[in-house]
């Protein structure tokens, strides 16, 4: 497996990241001094209960949200401190996104949605690469369809194709199977796995589903804004087992920082 490779570059890294929302009494600290690295060519899942800060972490890593303290790098590029224009360019050129829902523009066909990032950038997508993704995702028959004419699973596969279309340094997937039935969800996860194994893609996925996390090479557990566990080679059982003892993990983490 790719995780075994000794020469591993870091695709995404966070160093001492703090993030709080609101102020005074109503202040909620979403991230407390989070430091984490995501190796290139690896599939990492971020897990945690609601309000644990897993989505905030992903948003900060992807340059969608700013950090209060600490630094974030995508590859060699520092994300922290970039202005909106530079962030937009960074997202366009180096990051792919897969959201839980509403991934596609209803006015465009599946094919146009896949090449959307290139179109926005005013460049031409690499046709061989696009062809390869489309073939892998089994979307060849659906290219001229509008999103409303596609099933939920097909729509999400189009979103996957779009995320990979620009060969980004990292793809962030936010609950990509949250809205799908089990079978469609499995198809999407299998594709993500394939893209890591066959194309060397780096993927960071936020999920609360242990079954989904089992497709990853590594699971990072978040609770109360802190990383409480870092698990390599997860299986669904190991993840479920870990979650059962979550309260203890959180308490331990609190104790450490206190």
């Amino acid at each position, binding site marked *: 497996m790719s995780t075994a490779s000794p020469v591993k570059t870091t695709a995404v890294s966070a160093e001492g990241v703090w993030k709080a929302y609101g102020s005074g009494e109503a202040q909620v600290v979403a991230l407390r001094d989070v430091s984490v690295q995501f190796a290139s060519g690896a599939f990492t899942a971020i897990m945690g209960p609601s309000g644990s800060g897993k989505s905030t972490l992903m948003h900060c890593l992807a340059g969608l949200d700013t950090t209060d303290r600490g630094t974030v790098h995508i590859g060699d590029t520092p994300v922290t401190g970039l202005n909106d*224009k530079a962030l937009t360019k960074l997202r366009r050129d180096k990051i792919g996104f897969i959201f839980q*829902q509403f*991934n596609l523009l209803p006015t465009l066909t599946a094919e146009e949605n896949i090449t959307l990032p290139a179109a926005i950038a005013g460049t031409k997508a690499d046709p061989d690469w696009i062809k390869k993704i489309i073939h892998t995702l089994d979307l060849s028959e659906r290219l001229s369809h509008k999103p409303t004419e596609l099933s939920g699973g097909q729509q999400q596969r189009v979103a996957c194709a779009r995320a990979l279309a620009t060969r980004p340094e990292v793809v962030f997937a936010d609950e990509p199977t949250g809205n799908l039935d089990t079978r469609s969800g499995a198809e999407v996860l299998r594709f993500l796995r394939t893209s890591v194994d066959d194309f060397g893609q780096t993927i960071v996925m936020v999920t609360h589903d242990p079954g989904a996390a089992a497709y990853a090479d590594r699971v990072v557990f978040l609770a109360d804004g802190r990383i409480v566990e870092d698990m390599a080679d997860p299986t669904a059982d190991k993840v479920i087992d870990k979650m059962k003892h979550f309260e203890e993990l959180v308490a331990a983490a609190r104790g450490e920082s206190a």
Partner: protein
Amino acid sequence: MLRATLKGMASRKARLVLTSLAVVLGTMFVAAAMILTATMEKSVTGVIADAFTGIDAVVTPAEDPAAAQGNTPSANLVPGDVLETVRGVDGVDAADGDVSGQVNAIGDDGKLVGTFAPTIGFNWNAQSTGFNVIREGRAPEADGEVIVSAQFVTDSGLDIGDTVTAYSYSAERADYEIVGVFGLSGDRDSLAGETQIAFTTAEAQRLLTQGEDAYMAIYVQGDASTEDIADAISADYRVQTGEEASEEAAQGFAAVADIMGYIFLGFGLVAVFVSVFLIINTFTIIVAQRQRELALLRAIGAARNQVVGSVLAEAAVIGVIASIVGLGLGVVLGWGLSELVSSTAMGGLPVQLQVPATALWALAVGIGVTVLSAIVPAVKASGVPPVAAMREAVNPPKPLRGITIAGLAVTAVGGVLVVLGLTDNLGDLGLSGFLSGVGIAFVGITLLTPILSRPLVALLGAVMSWSFSGRLGRLNAGRNPRRTAITASALMIAVALVTGIATLVASFKETTTDLTDSNLESDLIVMGQQGANIPTFAPETLAEIKALPDVAAVGDLYGEFFGAEVDGEPTPLYASEDLETSLGIFSGTVAEGSIADLPDDGLAVNESAAEDRGVALGDTVPVTFADGTTEQLEVTAILDDSQLTDGWWVAPTQIEHFTIPKPMQAYIQVADGADIDAVQEEVETILADEPEVDVTNNADFIAQQTGQLDILLGSVQVLLALAIIIAIIGVINTLVLSVLERTRELGLLRAIGMTRGQARRMITVESVIICLFGAVLGIAVGIGLGWTVQQALEEEGLTSFALPWDYIVIYLAAAVVVGLLAAIAPAARAAKLNVLNAIAYE
């Protein structure tokens, strides 16, 4: 339920303000129109009442005094002996005769004095003082002296001590010394911009009653009743109280204000009509946005009619508030317009602001239109199923078949009414038939706009799709055909109206140019510059022009427009010293008979006029002239129909019976190879002593003929400006909603790398496409409307059809500007969108 409605409204303030603006504008213009009319009427009545202060009774001829002219037959005058009789009636303290009429006075530039030439001439007597106040000098005491109004001094450049030349239609020129200047009570220079000159009674009578000792009216002071006075004199004279006479006099003056009032009422109604679309659209949008909220209300037990009531209540609140604000602004606008009309058209008449009860109609219109427009969206809202509260709102586009069929039907009904109205099939209802036809056709076309929007938006969008964000904007504009269509409709209607008018004006210009170029064989034209009256010049001048070495031929035209009758029917008469030459210059041709040496009792008439009256070549027809002479004339020639020569032509010997026995126009043919400009200069020298006319070349002639239309066309653009404001509001409304609805989509685009500038451009392109769509449709409809009217008026002489290219280009450019302006706020909103919030889940 009402509480929930009001709370909901409070949370959508911006949208409510925008919607209210449309209602406010409509109400404002309707109210301003009512106020303008009432205010001008009141102001004019006030001034006229001033003039009649202290006058207890007025004696006038029983016949219509409006027919009075400078050389009025004595039947329309009150003779001097009646004045003596009135003076002898018990209770009459004083009585004076008034001699007044039109006088031509020549200013220091050699042309007639006064913007509203000619000048009003009258006799200065005891009655004149009171309303007229001597500012300087004194009253005229000898026949060679005059006192002039302050406005006259301003317009003529003459002052006390100067000599002024004056004459009338019936009296030759004479020189007078200005011995005094008077103003009007209230320190005004004039009543409504007119110039006045006052003579002794005898001199006024020489100029205005052909020297007869007679008066236009007798003004009486004292307690004698009108009956007592009437009993003392013959029934040929009418006796009115001072108030009655004052009211009658005021009516004529108020007419100007009435016309202005109608124009603004028209603007107001168009604004109201256009805002209907905006209101419907806004409420549809509000309902769509509140779908989940309404579904929740239904789910927890609100009845359908409660939902309808909730939406209508919202409309009523907007209607009431906006109408009250509109009425308030209407008062301000009405007052401002009254001041403007007063200072530009009425010579600084003091304005007395009046808010008539009819202005409250504006309130009713505003509220009514708002509530009625909200009915369709309200009923739609009640159709939201309770289960929609649990689901993500999905509004699949509805098929356009029903609305398209309805649109075709309604457009057809409107079209038929327009054609019927134009072709005299509706009799007196023709104009209202035409106007309501136009209104109905607009509604029909509006219903058709959704289906038209698909190909047109794609076409317009193709032009804009040079960038990817432009392409997305185009796709968005085509996304909801109904919404795009109704948004564009506001602009469409306004552009259609102004394009229609511009098309007619262009066609009229084309017709005039065609006529002049192809039918008029002359190179120079002698005619008057003043619009209000009939300028003439001395007949001897014609001979002088003919005698110029480079002049090949001269056509001339005499006219009689007052009180001449052919076979008992009032008919204008024409004459020429040399009919054959004149007809040649006008490219007129003879169908039957001959016009060579038209005999003294001969008559030439064009074919269709002859047909109308049922006369044929050789028939004898009684012709009565304005001076009372009746002659039996024989039709000796029938002319082919031609706009320049249509009418009844009498022999030159009959000219002496005309009210003004002087030529009105001369058409000069310059000899081949001669310099037209040089001849024009020579003719100018000959005309130096003719204050009423000028010589122009053909190009200037066309410009003069069409110049007034340009002014009309310019003022109609106000309508466009008004509609543009409403259209901008409508487009902003739609775009803001689109941005709201597509928050997720925008968030996604921004997340995957769309820059703020690209997002802004996307919204702007959508906006410009909607506006261009409205303008293109409006231009097409307007051209169609103009063409229909031109076709209907072809018989009346509007023979050419032309497109107002300059205006079309301006309207398209205006549409682009409107699109850019309207997009500013929504585009900024889209650009500033917080990506995180946009993609976050509930």
